[in-house]
């Protein structure tokens, strides 16, 4: 991806990591770097291998081959898919358990939880069972619990999926706060508008790296051109079209198309990367989308 920019060249991540589940290759030689103080996003569709990569980074899964560079468990924070909190414990009890397990002094833990809970709008539900929180609240609690001990590496698996816009902005405040505190934050997301906020993005598809770099770099590296159309093109071009913002986008592997050229954004670039791979794999004659 990018060269280490942090002082001392410190980075966390993977090099040529492969993970197998039975016969299936869940990650195929994936290399990824997360830098201290920066937010990195891992994007991709279902089965892309995002969760698998994050589990390797967090230390929940050992790869079949390749190298994982991660800090000691004490300096790693992890939000697993789901919220990783105990539904039958209250907000405060959940945080107290984390604080003790990660050896955060009681006073520090109290102060830090109070501050983060207040900012995330959870200060009024501190005595509520985590199982009775709304989805967004539970995710916020999960992120707070994962960053409570100021980890060097914070791994968040889909922290914002299924969360309302207000809670999403709270979550992003927490994420930015962790990065500002010096943590290397890695998050998996399905929302490309979110990935656009990240410093580095890794696009995975079926366990393979499709693209990586800064969002600008990925957009600039998009092959071919993009046009907008009011209707889905007929024939072969229809396979290269997808619905976007009330109309259709058509990708042309060559230099130009027939419609008005559109400046691609990250979402377009990622869609094209996945589409190009699919077109190369599936022979013509089958409608894709």
């Amino acid at each position, binding site marked *: 991806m990018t060269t280490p920019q942090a002082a001392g060249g410190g980075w966390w991540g993977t090099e040529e990591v492969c993970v*197998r*589940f039975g016969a299936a290759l869940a990650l195929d030689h994936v290399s990824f770097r997360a830098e201290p103080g920066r937010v990195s996003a891992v994007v991709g569709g279902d*089965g*892309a291998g995002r969760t698998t990569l994050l589990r390797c980074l967090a*230390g929940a899964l050992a790869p079949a081959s390749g190298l994982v560079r991660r800090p000691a468990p004490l300096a790693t924070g992890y939000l697993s898919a789901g919220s990783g*909190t105990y539904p039958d414990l209250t907000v405060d009890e959940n945080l107290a358990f984390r604080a003790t397990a990660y050896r955060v002094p009681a006073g520090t833990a109290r102060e830090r939880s109070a501050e983060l809970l207040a900012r995330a709008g959870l200060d009024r539900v501190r005595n509520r069972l985590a199982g009775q929180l709304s989805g967004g609240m539970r995710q916020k609690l999960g992120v707070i619990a994962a960053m409570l001990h100021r980890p060097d590496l914070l791994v968040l698996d889909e922290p914002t999926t299924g969360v309302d816009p207000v809670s999403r902005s709270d979550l992003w405040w927490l994420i930015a706060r962790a990065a500002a505190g010096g943590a290397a934050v890695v998050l998996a997301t399905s929302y490309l508008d979110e990935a656009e906020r990240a410093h580095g993005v890794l696009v995975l598809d079926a366990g393979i790296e499709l693209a990586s770099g800064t969002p600008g770099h990925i957009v600039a590296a998009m092959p071919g051109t993009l046009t907008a159309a009011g209707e889905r093109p007929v024939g072969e071009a229809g396979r290269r079209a997808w*619905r976007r913002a009330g109309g259709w986008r058509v990708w042309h592997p060559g230099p130009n198309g027939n419609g008005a050229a559109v400046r691609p954004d990250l979402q377009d670039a990622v*869609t094209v990367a996945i589409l190009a791979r699919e077109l190369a794999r599936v022979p013509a004659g089958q409608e894709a989308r």
Partner: protein
Amino acid sequence: MWAMIVKEFRQLRRDRRTLAMMIVMPVVLLIVFGYAASFDVTTIPTVATGPQAGLAARLLGKPFDVVSTQSSQGKAWAEQQLRDGHAAVAVVTGNARPQVLVDGSQLFTAKTAIAALSAAASRQAGGGLPAGRAFIAPTVTVLYNPGLGTSDIMIPGLAGVVLVFVGTIITSLGVVRERQSGTLEQLAVMPLKPRDVFLGKIVPYFAVAALDLAIVVGVGVSLFGVPFRGSLAVFALGALLFLFVTLGIGVLISSVSENQGQAIQLSFMVTLPQVLLSGLIFPLSSIAAGVRWISYLLPLTYFNQISRGVMLRAEPIGPLWQPLTFLALLGAVVFTLASLRFRAFLAPAAHRRGGGHPRSVPSTAGAPAAGSAG
């Protein structure tokens, strides 16, 4: 309705364990009740002491099985044989009237012995003795449980059943709960040693079970008047070993279950045979030999021997070495297996059993979820 029936059968087919339980359980119960569930006592281990021990041994017919005849020993030795569980009936001769001692802590054996004695007495009164000797009916003394009460023998056994329930069922639920709430993965990456997680998981259940045991014994003694004649320390040692086995089984069940429902099912499959085959309800000697070997694999069998021995007969630690050793062995095996399973369950591994995390399996669907966000 048809749609519902088809759906239900499909789900049932996927849930192999429930299916197995529905088919295997009735068969197991049938066998257990057919071969094991019997109150009939056919052999009663008996000893005879005193000058006429040999004669007494000859006069005792079925169901008495004379295991030892000691003409040089007296009543003290006979009582010791009963206390240590070597015999259920002892005939002491040498006094004006022969005395028969019956171990009341073996309820059905004692009842059978008393019935057989009175039948034999009326038979002998009609003749059959060597010439010149008149028949003298023996005095019968029931030791340890003179009233032949049920609560006296049930409550020491019940203490074991309580420990099985708390130890196995509740513990198995506790560990599998982590898997269900998705917090197991968090535990795996936390800076905690697997041993700490394992012990941290078990200690609370251990404490609750120990408290339960104290309550059952306390209520039994104060409310039902069950005697506690032996050493509290020996009882505690037996209970400790027994708890290790049951808690270990609980963790083991948890580590092979996907959810709490499965854990409960498995727990019942483990606890039900213990209740039926441990000698708690049906005397061990009445269980058919083909099924009885199962009894000797069950921890409750040994705990029953210990708790009844200590509470009712004041049995010291010496003759109890066998059940204590078996419990310790079972505990070592079960605990080793449980901690190994637990370690594998926590430790990061690429080839984890059942590791088919749906999102970790590559699919050919190439559409990014982002497509719907635009």
